[in-house]
């Protein structure tokens, strides 16, 4: 069940071009990999959607790409500060896969460390836009990594069941290569729990709420 709690920041670390934000876990459940949490972004009206990156008995950690005012405010938090956290929300990855391959593009690698932990051992391939961004691959030690101009889709071996998260063009390319792949999508979200209808995306020709139907959807 999702809960909303005020949690303390326990750590803020740079990981290459990204930031890993650690919070004490309190009564929050980590949920299924691919589910997300709405984090209060200090000074902003609306919370921001973030995938759970790592879970330990005492902490939840989120990997952030500071792309605008909300993610910048979250990356500027300091240990001891407190923010409201609501989750876990949405539908995550199905874990009953026989030959999983994790595919991540850029900040889309965020849910993969927790996914890898929950699956046991699973091969992973990651693509980044620069060497500095690629330093985040340290969070997924056994992953094979490429940096642009090479694309992560070059590393996908047919015969695996793909679980992927990344920018839209990457997800479309993966969907075309791997029918049945589980893809984690993004959309602007105000609430994360079905209240605002802001996160509409096209699912099988119909606009549906990504926070309710997804964010993980199966490729047709």
């Amino acid at each position, binding site marked *: 069940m999702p809960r*909303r709690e005020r949690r303390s920041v326990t750590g803020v670390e740079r990981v290459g071009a990204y930031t890993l934000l650690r919070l004490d876990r309190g009564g929050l459940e980590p949920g299924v990999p691919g589910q997300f949490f*709405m984090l*209060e972004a200090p000074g*902003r*009206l*609306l*919370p921001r959607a973030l995938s759970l990156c790592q879970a330990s008995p005492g902490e939840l950690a989120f990997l952030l790409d500071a792309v605008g005012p*909300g993610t910048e405010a979250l990356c500027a938090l300091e240990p001891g500060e407190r923010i*409201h956290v*609501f989750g876990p929300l949405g539908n995550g990855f199905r874990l009953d896969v026989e030959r999983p391959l994790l595919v991540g593009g850029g900040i889309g690698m965020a849910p993969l460390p927790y996914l890898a932990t929950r699956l046991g051992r699973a091969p992973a391939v990651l693509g980044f836009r620069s060497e500095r961004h690629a330093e985040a691959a340290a969070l997924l030690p056994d992953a094979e990594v490429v940096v642009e101009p090479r694309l992560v889709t070059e590393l996908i071996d047919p015969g695996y069941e793909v679980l992927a998260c990344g920018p839209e063009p990457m997800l479309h390319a993966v969907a075309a290569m791997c029918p049945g792949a589980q893809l984690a999508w993004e*959309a*602007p*979200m*105000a*609430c994360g*729990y*079905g*209240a*605002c*209808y*802001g*996160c*509409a*995306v096209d699912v099988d020709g*119909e*606009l549906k709420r990504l926070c*309710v139907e997804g964010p993980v959807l199966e490729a047709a």
Partner: protein
Amino acid sequence: MRLLNASGCLDALTAPGVARSLDGFVTKTITPLPREGNAPPRIAETAYGMLNAIGLANPGRERFLAEALPQLRELGVPLWISVGGFVAADYAETCAALEDVEALELNLSCPNVDEAADSAAEIVAACRAVTALPLYAKLSAAHPDLSEVARAVAAAGADGLSLVNTLRGMALHPRTHEPVLARGQGGLSGPSLKPVALAAVHTCYAATKLPIVGMGGVAAGRDVVDLVACGARDVALGTILFSDPDAPTRVRVEIGDADLDEVFGTAHESAAVHA
């Protein structure tokens, strides 16, 4: 004072616990035919509010009556049905199809679809003719003479008013200066609406004395008290529910033992205040 949600700001079927923490659940506006709504992106955050251009996404009257309404009844929360359309007959047909609900709220003021062809009073009169249920007319504060509209819908048979709907606004990308919303413009809600809501409730209470559901930027108990002082009998929570689904419970705690009957209408007592 009943605490409600603002139409379009909660789905009781995906968040039944939040709906049960309110004194009534107001549905998203129901139109005669199903609507997918506008193309995404359809929300944007601004400094003191948010913009939405959802465009009345809803399953349409028939599916609402057959599928959603029976499920909503099972929640055991008093139901307010928000009714929309494009001509008076659209609204009246939906009103005629509804019974056993707490109230009907006629959405006469959505900035995200093209204006209804009939006037607010014509729509209210058409609905009044077909239902005995309490009818609330939801108005926009953007009208140049709000007290005149309020008097007209009162004369046409409205039992109450819902104030305010969003105001039209726009946000641009910081670098490209293109509109953030695919539709270009959208409805502004949240903190920046509160002074607008206070003025609209004040004006319409002075003009009609009808019961009013006040809304617009309510985030805390203090905002509820202010709306009641301007003449709101009931209050609805909108945008605050997106960041805080626990807001209904929190707001009640913040109101505490303030005597809302005592506060009611006090903003009208000073002779210097003009509607």
